[in-house]
């Protein structure tokens, strides 16, 4: 059997000295997609930032298509606390290498580059792919006609939904082999939200593995094969799409019957 797309084993991390999440195990096989569902402020975003290398993991391993993304071993936190961690030890993970491997993280509520135009942003993203096979600019424009219409505008002048679309488009252009979407539909109007959901569904149908964080169970159901429940910095449950209860059921699983 081929290596899983993403294999996270026993991963712990946070912002030193505060640990945010611990002992996370997550596996994503070829052609699958996973969802993460959990309350706000419990470390989902920090976990994703660790996956993409923005924050060094404390312990555990991240394997992407079989390749180790971080340096193994415990991070010496207590002993080194009074030293300059970066000068004394090497960094345990490099975000650009993670992105070059094809693990692309589209951040939550990302402002992108406010003073750059849509076109400039998209061309930078294609350059960041460094010749690896990604989506072509034409494909992305077809996927997001709304973004294509505003190509000459600065991102600062776009609406929240359009900005989110630019983020996803930029992610697609930088040649992903796994797309991590962190609450892409947060705070959008229903119409724009539907457009974005349809586009993400189209991306999913091309066979692109996706890790999706969202609060909308209906949307999650359309995209994912496996759902992880994320609670207090731990994975508290794992279920297939068929086993997924409705929104109230999930809330009951997370908070007990009387939430």
């Amino acid at each position, binding site marked *: 059997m081929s290596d899983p797309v993403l294999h996270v084993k026993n991963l712990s991390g946070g912002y030193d000295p505060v640990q945010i999440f611990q002992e996370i195990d997550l596996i994503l096989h070829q052609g699958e997609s996973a969802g993460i569902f959990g309350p706000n402020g419990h470390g989902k975003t920090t976990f994703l930032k660790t996956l993409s290398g923005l924050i060094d993991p404390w312990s555990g391993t991240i394997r992407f298509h079989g390749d180790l993304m971080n340096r193994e071993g415990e991070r010496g936190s207590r002993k080194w606390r009074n030293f300059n*961690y970066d000068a004394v030890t090497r960094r345990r993970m490099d975000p650009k290498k993670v992105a070059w491997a094809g693990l*692309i993280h589209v951040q939550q509520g990302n402002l992108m580059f*406010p003073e*750059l135009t849509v076109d400039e942003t998209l*061309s930078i993203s294609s*350059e960041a792919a460094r010749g690896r096979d990604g989506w072509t600019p034409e494909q992305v424009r077809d996927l997001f006609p709304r973004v294509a219409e505003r190509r000459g505008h600065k991102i600062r002048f776009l609406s929240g939904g359009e900005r989110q679309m630019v983020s996803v488009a930029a992610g697609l252009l930088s040649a992903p082999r796994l797309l991590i979407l962190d609450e892409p539909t947060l705070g959008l109007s229903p119409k724009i939200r539907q457009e974005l959901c349809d586009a993400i569904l189209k991306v999913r149908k091309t066979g692109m593995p996706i890790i999706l964080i969202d609060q909308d169970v209906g949307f999650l159901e359309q995209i994912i094969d496996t759902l992880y429940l994320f609670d207090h910095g731990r994975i508290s449950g794992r279920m297939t799409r068929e086993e997924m209860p409705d929104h109230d059921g999930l809330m009951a699983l997370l908070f007990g019957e009387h939430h």
Partner: protein
Amino acid sequence: MDAATLFSVLQGGLVLGALYALMATGLSLVWTTLGIFNFAHGAFIALGAYIAWQFSSADAWNLPLLPAILLTSAVMFAVGALMHFLLVKPFERRADVVLISVITTLAASAILENGLLLIWGPRSKQIPPLGEGEVVLGQISLSTSEVILLVLVLAILLGIGLFLRYARPGRIMRAVSQNREAAELLGLNVPLYFAIAFGLSAVTAGLAGVFVGTIRFMNPAMGSEPLMKALIVVIFGGVARFSSPIYAAFIIGLLEAFSIYVVGLYWAPAVLFFTMIVVLLIKPEGLFGKHQRTL
């Protein structure tokens, strides 16, 4: 004030403004991209002047001025990039990187200035002037070297502006300065572009040093007063965009030239600081400033 005096004050102000523009641009390039303030910028100014002297002076390697300036730029770019890896990169992920880089760049400034003294000695030096003779336009005559200086500075600033606007690395530098995390997540090589920004900044400082060296005598501490002025320019103008320190530099340069004429050399800095305070009271982000800082 008669027309001739007015013109010579104006001319002095423009030359000062051009030099300040070059210095302030380099300073704000690092400030907008890396978010740190480079106190070694003044030492870079002196270093550039001394390297250019080494290349061009009849007492040293005696190259013509143009190749000397180009070689100086190349050396300064390398020095700037190296300084980024020595002074800023090791601390970039710390929360107090701004404070630490104040200390490291101040240290580098002291080391560089004393190094200059050690290598080239305390004797005053001067770089050969950019041109000789005068350009006569009707009733006005201008010294050729000052005209060349003005043209060169404007060309350099225009070149940097076009580079940032249209060239691929320039565009990526703007992206990195606006949202570092997003750039990292796309797989852009952020440390490389930081090093390029630092290198470019050192080049502008070095060139400013060369131009100062052609009109004044050089000493290892020659950069500290211009650094102060460049700082005033950056604060006064704000750093909303690449061009805002440039306008501010010419305003400050002209203001300085006129206040020297009106209130004398000793009170001119007081006028500058007073103007800066008034501007900051009214527009805290600087004259052309906006909250968002970008290249």
